[in-house]
């Protein structure tokens, strides 16, 4: 088993929790007008965590990138399709402007964060490094 890898899985779960909390806050107040500050903060924090994770990933020297890429690309396809379906539902429901922008940002972070998380979780236990 690999040791001394950066806490990418932990950060991914944190980003997921933050983005879900922001989404639940917004969805719980729809369709009435509500302050977008908590959801905006959640999206910015989650987005920053994903960027930190991408940076940390680049710093890893010995890692099975083949397995990481295989898992990440299929996860991106699957959850990208789910995110697209949810985006369609938000648009169909009449979400526009700032609310739609925030929801879209939430879905983009969701769709990028999960492939990193799944790919890293599987590749960290791989025997091969390249």
């Amino acid at each position: 088993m690999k040791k001394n890898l950066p806490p990418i899985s932990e950060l991914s779960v944190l980003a997921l929790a933050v983005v879900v909390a922001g989404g639940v806050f917004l969805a719980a107040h729809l369709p009435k007008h509500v302050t977008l500050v908590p959801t905006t903060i959640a999206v910015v924090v989650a987005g920053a965590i994903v960027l930190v994770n991408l940076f940390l990933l680049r710093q890893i020297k010995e890692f099975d990138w083949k397995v990481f890429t295989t898992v990440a690309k299929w996860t991106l396809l699957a959850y990208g399709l789910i995110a697209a379906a949810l985006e369609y539902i938000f648009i169909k429901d009449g979400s526009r402007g700032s609310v739609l922008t925030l929801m879209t940002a939430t879905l983009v972070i969701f769709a990028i964060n999960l492939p990193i998380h799944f790919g890293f979780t599987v590749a960290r236990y791989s025997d091969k490094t390249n």
Partner: protein
Amino acid sequence: MAHDVISQKPTDFKIVPTSAIPLVAIVYIGLLIAVATNRLWALDFFHVVGGACWTAIDLFLGFVIGPIIGKMSIPARMEFSKKFMPKMVLLMPTLVIATLAGGFQLARHEGFILSSDKHHPWVVASMIVVGVLAVVALGFLEPANIGVLFELKKEHPNGEVIGKLMKRFLYTAGITGVMQVATLIIMTRIATL
């Protein structure tokens, strides 16, 4: 540790059962049609059927199958996992998206999502429960599931890795089981208000 590496012939099972993908596609297309047409029956169908299956599977896995797997030997767990987990890779995300998309549209259709509606506090409670479920399922369950399957694909699967990931899978399955009990309470309350 030498005994943690389990000698086994390379396995030929599929991590994603591709033969089931057309069925998943049919469910997704049906769900999108239900949302696009906003028909009450169709939305109710996807929410109730998806939710019933999701809840039943989580409860059964968390409280019946989970403890049984926990007492199995590692080779027995591996054999079970090879047959069981690939099905979960496609089944659970499909049930979850059908339940949530159908439920959100249903709540809009019926006005439950309006903060003035008497059902609103319970709808918000269900969103919080679903949020916790999403974090547990996507943060812990699903990656552990895929990790175990990749390990089982190896010529010499590492029992220590499988044991660690399976333990995570079983603990979190128990948490989702408890959250599903909360879902049952909330949904029956919404239905009888």
